[in-house]
């Protein structure tokens, strides 16, 4: 058997996300965002990180607000249902944060290039845009067959991908379902993969359905049991999106002082999933929980 990879969240972040790490997170876009892992990064006061992702919803804004970030390589940073990310704005407008502007397609290709071991991939997006002015990882190139003008997206090689999944065994074999975003590219490209999982399950649960696996288990470095670890984003099979949390965060991030208070309550004061559950409260968790279950039709892998 392979070796056990189960770690506590602090141990996983301590070991695999040092200062200066390049981290891809939020690969499923609006869903299954690894907030708990991001908050542990903030608690540990990491510095000079590079955050990589398509749209991060508010997670990148939070980590930026905590002063952990030197550079963002992303397509969009903000709050999906309210607009601006205020910490992001402040950091960029004051010159403290470096940005490389991507689109959802170019960031997926940049990670796919690294996954494939090629230095770039071509695409027809972004031609004529000003993204070339604010992203040195985009250049134009020419097709050797047709002479067509194309955008070349340079490979982005993250040090670590953090992925939140529904269930994993202790060896890093995991099931994820729902929209997958750029999870595949992110994990295949990264040197290390950290999984935070709603449930730790028996290996036989995972091997009962190898098509449901999203990343090669042998490349996973750490598995962390993290119930409610993607709250307030939604997790199929576990909980719905907590819209109110995103609305509240808008208000709580308008000034650095408000953000500090928010962070003290929702990040600094949390030492475990149990702390987080206590802060959320039973009623709120019940309101977000799956009310109407809808199970997949099984398939047969027998022989």
């Amino acid at each position: 058997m392979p070796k056990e990879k189960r770690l506590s969240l602090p141990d996983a972040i301590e070991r695999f996300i040092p200062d200066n790490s390049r981290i891809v997170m939020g690969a499923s876009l609006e869903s299954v965002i690894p907030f708990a892992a991001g908050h542990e990064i903030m608690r540990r006061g990491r510095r000079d990180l590079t955050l990589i992702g398509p749209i991060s919803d508010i997670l990148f804004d939070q980590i930026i607000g905590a002063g952990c970030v030197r550079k963002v390589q992303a397509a969009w940073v903000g709050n999906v249902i309210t607009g601006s990310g205020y910490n992001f704005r402040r950091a960029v407008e004051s010159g403290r944060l470096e940005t490389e502007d991507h689109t959802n397609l170019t960031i997926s290709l940049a990670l796919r290039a690294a996954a494939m071991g090629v230095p770039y991939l071509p695409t027809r997006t972004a031609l004529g845009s000003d993204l070339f002015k604010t992203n040195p990882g985009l250049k134009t190139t020419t097709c050797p067959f047709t002479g067509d003008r194309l955008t070349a997206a340079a490979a982005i090689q993250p040090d670590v991908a953090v992925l939140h999944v529904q269930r994993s065994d202790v060896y890093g074999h995991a099931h994820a379902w729902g929209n997958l975003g750029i999870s595949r590219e992110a994990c295949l490209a990264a040197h290390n993969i950290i999984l935070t999982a709603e449930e730790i399950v028996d290996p036989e649960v995972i091997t009962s359905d190898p098509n449901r696996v999203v990343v090669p288990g042998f490349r996973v470095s750490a598995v962390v049991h993290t119930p409610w670890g993607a709250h307030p984003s939604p997790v199929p099979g576990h909980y719905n999106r907590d819209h109110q949390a995103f609305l509240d965060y808008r208000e709580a991030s308008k000034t650095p002082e408000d953000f500090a208070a928010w962070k003290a309550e929702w990040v600094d004061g949390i030492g475990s999933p149990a702390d987080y559950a206590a802060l959320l409260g039973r009623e709120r968790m019940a309101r977000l929980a799956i009310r109407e279950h809808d199970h997949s039709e099984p398939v047969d892998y027998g022989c």
Partner: protein
Amino acid sequence: MAADPTRNAGSDYTQADLMVAAAAREIADGEVVFVGMRLPLLGFLVAKSLHAPEAVGVYELGIIRESLASEPILTMGDLPNLRRSHWLADTADMMAILGRGDVDVSFIGGAQVDRFGNLNTTIIGRPDRIETRLPGSGGACDLACLARRHIIIMAHRKHRFVDRVDYITSPGYGDGGDWRRRVGLARGGPSAVITTLGVLRFDPDTREMVLASVHPGATPETIQNNTGWPLRRASDLQTTPPPTAGELAMIRRFDPHRYWTR
């Protein structure tokens, strides 16, 4: 950002309702729609429930739906939008459908637009002297480059309708004419701009924006006053039909708490 909260005087619908209805009418039955967030998401749902029941929704986070979700949603990733959908897959799969030319229409919003339909959602100011940092492209640039046509939805204000955007996040027609072909874009371009005051389209030759329809309560003059360049008017300038009772009912169904359409 939510739409302008000002209601049209003496009507039972908001500017946002009218914009959603106008967006819905741009979708023909059977079309493949790359669905964006906020008002366009509502517009797609209204079209799908009324005149375009066979429209197919493609969502950048990796979802294809040929049916309506069982419950209202606020973001594309809300669980009712995943449940009983027709494909849950990778963003790359959705981008392949877009890149190959299989998406008929998409919708994007922005902070600044110019007379050739170029859209800015990245930087107000200059890259070396940023006044306001906006969230960025997301998938908007991809849609503006790769869909067969795209539709822009935004508030009509003078500082937003500028002669030349500070930064092209999502290409329209560049500096007009055959610019798209020259820079290598294989197809597409904006077909309409739906604003809080009217609907604008593009001259087929010069590719300059032309006022095509004025919303009830607005006038060509108020629209010109909120536009940063001398705006051409279509010879057959229309008045935008208000939302029908059916459209309004669907808007209320899909935005029951009036989060987007207050």
